[in-house]
């Protein structure tokens, strides 16, 4: 397994300065992504999952900065690269599919020109060679070749997203970070895009990090899952383990708050309150104020990310991790709120 290791994040911390305060957007995050693996990074808006993606590529907005940690990509630390080295590194090793493909394509340039420009920045290719490569990628993501000479505004949202996916593959990266690639699309288009991503994963066997808020997407596409809450990883394991035996109450709540079109009808769990203010992160467990299991200890000290197995296959940041209390926490809560169901 270790020789397949692609990305190794170690204790990454990212902050934004807002006014005089610092928002601790990513706190002490360690993650690994392997070749041929899709890692799902799931969490709700504001939990820091996109910031984590931006941190890895080092394209944070001006007020953001990485204060600590290492980001080893095939052994070399991205955070210690100079800006020039980084420019070459981006896209050739590591690329990103951005949220909101609507605006990711320059409106005044033709699609093939945008892609050619990027390819040329990394490789010494002729235009003809580049066009061959672009044709290849268009086939791969299921776009008609006629669209190569289109402008962004002439394409539908789904097509634009495919162009963006093709763009991310231009230089054969070993890792792709996809930030909410299907959000804002209708279910049919979403499904087409997921199919394209899965196809790529099957054919190319690269590493993929899928950032999303939708656990259904995670369930279908990811091998492993990391759950983020308030800037931290609260649970990390294989997809099956997370879905069948969540070890953190927050994960359990997430799983029980999603309706499904299949399976028995059930009541959904909702969380009260809001995530903590990250300008001043709490001392204890960040989830404690919303957690039905919380005890004094939870409020006083943040639980460590504990290994529930022997080989770091299932990690959870909770004092109750692994006990039945976690899975039962929300059934008690449901009866309390009266749980109106469908």
């Amino acid at each position, binding site marked *: 397994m270790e020789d397949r290791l692609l990305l190794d994040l170690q204790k990454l911390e990212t902050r934004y300065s807002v006014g005089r305060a610092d928002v601790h957007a990513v706190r002490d995050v360690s993650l690994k992504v392997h070749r041929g693996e899709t890692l799902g990074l799931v969490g709700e808006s504001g939990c820091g999952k996109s910031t984590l993606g931006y941190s890895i*590529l080092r*394209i944070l907005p001006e007020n953001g900065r990485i204060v600590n940690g290492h980001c080893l990509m095939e052994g070399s630390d991205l955070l210690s690269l100079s800006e020039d080295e980084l*420019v*070459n*590194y*981006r*896209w*050739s090793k590591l*690329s*990103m599919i*951005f949220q*909101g493909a609507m*605006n*990711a*394509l*320059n*409106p*005044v*340039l033709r699609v093939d020109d945008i892609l050619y*420009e*990027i390819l040329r*920045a*990394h490789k010494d290719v002729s235009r003809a060679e580049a066009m061959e490569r672009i044709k290849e990628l268009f086939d791969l993501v299921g776009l008609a070749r006629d669209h190569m000479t289109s*402008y962004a*505004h002439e394409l539908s949202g789904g097509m634009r997203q495919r162009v*963006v996916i093709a*763009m991310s593959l*231009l*230089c054969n990266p070993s890792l792709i970070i996809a930030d909410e690639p299907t959000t804002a699309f209708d279910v049919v288009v979403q499904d087409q895009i997921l199919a394209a991503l899965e196809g790529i994963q099957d054919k190319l066997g690269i590493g993929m990090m899928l950032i999303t808020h939708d656990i259904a997407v995670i369930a279908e596409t990811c091998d492993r899952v990391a759950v983020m809450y308030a800037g931290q990883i609260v649970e990390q394991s294989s997809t099956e383990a997370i879905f069948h035996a969540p070890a953190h109450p927050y994960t359990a709540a997430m799983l029980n708050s999603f309706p499904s079109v299949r399976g028995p009808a059930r009541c959904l769990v909702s969380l009260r309150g809001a995530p903590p203010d990250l300008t001043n992160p709490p001392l204890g467990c960040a989830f404690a104020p919303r957690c039905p299991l919380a005890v004094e200890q939870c409020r006083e000290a943040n639980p460590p990310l504990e290994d529930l197995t022997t080989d770091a296959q299932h990690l959870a940041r909770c004092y109750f991790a692994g006990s039945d209390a976690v899975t039962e926490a929300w059934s008690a809560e449901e009866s309390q709120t009266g749980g109106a169901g469908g």
Partner: protein
Amino acid sequence: MSVGRLPRYVVRRVLQFVPVILAVLIFNFVLIKIAPGDPALTMAGEWATKEQVELVRQKWGLDQPLMTQLLRYLGNLLGGDLGFSYHYHMPVLDVIMLRLPKTLLLVLTSMIMGIVLGTLIGVYSASRYGTRLDLVASVLSLAFYSIPVFWLGLLLIIVFGLNLKLFPYTGYISFGVKGAFSVVVDVLWHMVMPSVTLMACLYIPVFLRISRASVVEVMKEDYITTARAAGLGERAVFMRHALRNAIVPVVQMVGIWMSQALTGVVLTETVFSWPGMGTLMYTAIIMRDYPLLMGIFLITAVWVVLTFLAVDVATAYLDPRVTYE
């Protein structure tokens, strides 16, 4: 963007503008007609007898009903006849043709230099967004934009004309200059101060600010982030992605100022006694030379229309989202 549609588009747009020009003309016509004072009286002169005034009135058709006068004027226009200037005793078109090149020379030269300088500084300033230099550039440009042109002109005349005697400050050519080369040099010499005034107070600040603002705006777009993330160097991001998008508002601003080229410089022309359209218009107003005034309005309106059209064509060329529709 298909060029094939361009001629049809231009024809259609020109046709669309005909009613607009007509409306402008009628508006001006009515405005002039309701003005107090009797043009016949002005034309005939202060010491004219009643009969002489009547004669003038009849000769110019001023005794006819308004509608008839308007229709006759429009009829003459179709024949290329813009009327006859009372004040200059010349056909209106001839008077205008004498002045138009001088204004265009001054304005276009200053504007082109202003656009180039302003845009260069603006783009550079935007590339250093948020730095001290950027702040200084944007505050200074606003300060210069706040200076009244005629005041700066006056100061330049006092300092460089009267005291240092470096530059001439009236007219566009010195008396008795002969020979093509000498004439060109002399005219350029005369243009220095009016041009500097126009560039300092108007063109450089305006194009500095618009180009800076639009580059800054574009640099915030998602596709710029994408290009950066995709490993394009900062230079390539700027040159290939940012500038092409940022140029559109600049072109539109060029259109706005170009459309005002003929009349926008009346103050500068007045200060430096530059014999252009601005001073001509001012004279026409003070002298109540209505045919000349109407002629100037007409030429101005046509000029405005043409510049608009040019901007539309240029915008559609630069931005594929805009079509010749």
